[in-house]
């Protein structure tokens, strides 16, 4: 993998990138203010929405996020035409140790979809205990994956991004990449209850950003974290090892799936429906992987 990284790296481009990062301060994202103003959010006098989203914070972080999205991971997103209007439950594959996938899905909807959308990501329950991350996540629309949060958002016609694999998906090892882990079933009951269509969203490329070779469970337990990855670079190279590898990321929004039924159906029936979502998502992932081929750092998206 390392060899591939070196083979595919275009050093001229990298130099350009560095100079661009230096210009970060003066960078303006074309049409970003307009997109922000068109977001379907209802703000109070302090500039926050009902769930703590703060577009002003989004604006402040925008240049950094834009560089990460456009230049570092060179994200290509497809399938926006599949997203229905109104409430939507996005179901994604989770991978790559840190929620880069959630960030890239959210950014693709914010920066590229028409009309601009905001996806509220459901995060791990330990996130509120992490300094800085906790408040940052709230400002950009994320919240803990409590069923009550998800229900509230869907009932208010918001769209929610859920990774039903949870930490099982994001913490898995490199050898298991792009294999969907066991899905939680709570999201399906919530989708049935609020009559929300499910849009499978496949994220290709995040699994290669932090290739975990071992999960140091004892240390994770000590830190109160769900897992602690050991990669070829972390913790060996210290903080430098925390820099994600610049794999090319593609985001694919699949066709919406509509389910009929009641939220209090027996677990077997719910599991059948969840299986359908899982299959749809896996086929979306496989299609994406096929297009990318083995060019992890420069592959195509279409």
């Amino acid at each position, binding site marked *: 993998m390392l060899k591939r990284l070196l083979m595919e790296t275009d050093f001229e481009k990298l130099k350009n990138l560095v100079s661009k990062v230096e210009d970060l301060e003066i960078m303006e994202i074309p049409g970003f203010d307009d997109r922000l103003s068109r977001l379907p959010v209802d703000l109070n006098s302090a500039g926050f929405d009902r769930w703590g989203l703060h577009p002003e914070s989004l604006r402040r972080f925008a240049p950094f996020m834009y560089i990460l999205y456009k230049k570092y991971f060179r994200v290509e997103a497809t399938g926006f035409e599949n997203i229905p209007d109104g409430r939507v439950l996005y179901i994604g594959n989770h991978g790559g140790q840190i929620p880069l996938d959630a960030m890239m899905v959210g950014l693709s909807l914010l920066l590229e979809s028409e009309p601009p959308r905001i996806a509220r990501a459901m995060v791990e329950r330990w996130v*509120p205990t992490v*300094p800085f991350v906790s408040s940052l996540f709230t400002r950009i629309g994320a919240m803990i994956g409590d069923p009550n949060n998800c229900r509230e958002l869907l009932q208010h016609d918001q769209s929610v991004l859920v990774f039903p694999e949870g930490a099982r998906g994001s913490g898995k090892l490199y050898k298991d990449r792009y294999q969907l882990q066991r899905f939680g079933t709570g999201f399906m009951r919530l989708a049935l209850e609020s009559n929300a269509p499910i849009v499978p969203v496949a994220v290709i490329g995040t699994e290669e950003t932090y290739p975990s070779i071992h999960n140091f469970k004892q240390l994770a337990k000590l830190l109160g974290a769900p897992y602690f990855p050991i990669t070829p670079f972390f913790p060996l190279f210290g903080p430098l090892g925390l820099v994600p590898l610049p794999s090319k990321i593609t985001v694919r929004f699949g066709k919406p799936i509509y389910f009929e039924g009641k939220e209090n159906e027996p677990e077997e029936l719910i599991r059948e429906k969840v299986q359908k979502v899982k299959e749809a998502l896996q086929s979306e992932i496989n299609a994406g992987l096929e297009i990318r081929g083995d060019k992890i750092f420069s592959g195509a998206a279409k």
Partner: protein
Amino acid sequence: MIDSKKTTKPKILITGASSAISRLVAGALSPKYDLVGVDPRPAPRDSHFPGEFVVADYHSRRLDEVFQKYQFEAVMHLGRIRESQKYSSQYRFQMNVIGTQKLLELCKQNQVKNLIVLSTYHVYGANRLNALQLTEESPLRASQSFPELVDAVELDHAATTFMWKNREIRTTVLRPTNVIGKHIRNTICSLLRSGLCPKIFGFDPLMQFIDEKDLARALILALEQPQAGVFNVAGEGVIAYSHAIRHANAVIVPLPPFISSGLVRLVAEISKMNLPPYLMEFFKYPTIINDDAFRLKFGYQPKVKTVQSLKNLGTPADRRSLIAQANLDESV
């Protein structure tokens, strides 16, 4: 003419009559009702209570006499003793739990028609497991981490149990979020007004604030269109704590994330700040309440914008001059 009308006006008992909220409510109610105020503290010098004022503990015999003297139509129990270093936890338990039980018993004995109890959102507790929007059904986690808050939880519990057991008395329990306003002296108000606000480094939770006038309005709504139930009452919307500090013209005093309650007490002692240790959790995790039910059933709509309300808090000197001028603004 006034005298003949006075005899037919319904009578209302308001507890905590020395507090700013009670006086705001009393000021708005006095044209239509005969009011009796009761408080263990003497009547404040700065403002006249529009009605009879009785100094009494809520669990004392004195309260029996008051109930016998007047046939109260409604009782507004607004006199919860708040958590602060000023009162010991034993005293607060005595007043808030034993006192409330006594008051509820008296309501039952004297066939009061309508009871309104002012609880607090603190009963939900600040916890990382809290849903972002807490409804009235959410678990009350407060006493789990802070036994100091047990009296608040018990008061709430006593009132809700009373509501279910005595359906003939329409009981409305209100759980308001942080109350702020230029007359209010609670902990969060004093901190924001003092110009120095402790904030835990790395944590900036969402908060809600309700203006004193909006809370007074909510209490009057609960009195005038009585519906039994437990209801959250919030203000306009959420705001990050650091933004609230900025709007109140205060400065952030960063505290380390892993500060022990003992150290908090020490800091409070040295700086003369009112800084109860349980508050640290509220500075770490959001405790946002959902008041949709109250808005829907009572047609409540907060009128004061959060930012405006924070800006109007004034300084400690402003508050002192307010007391000196005795100009409690009673237009709710």
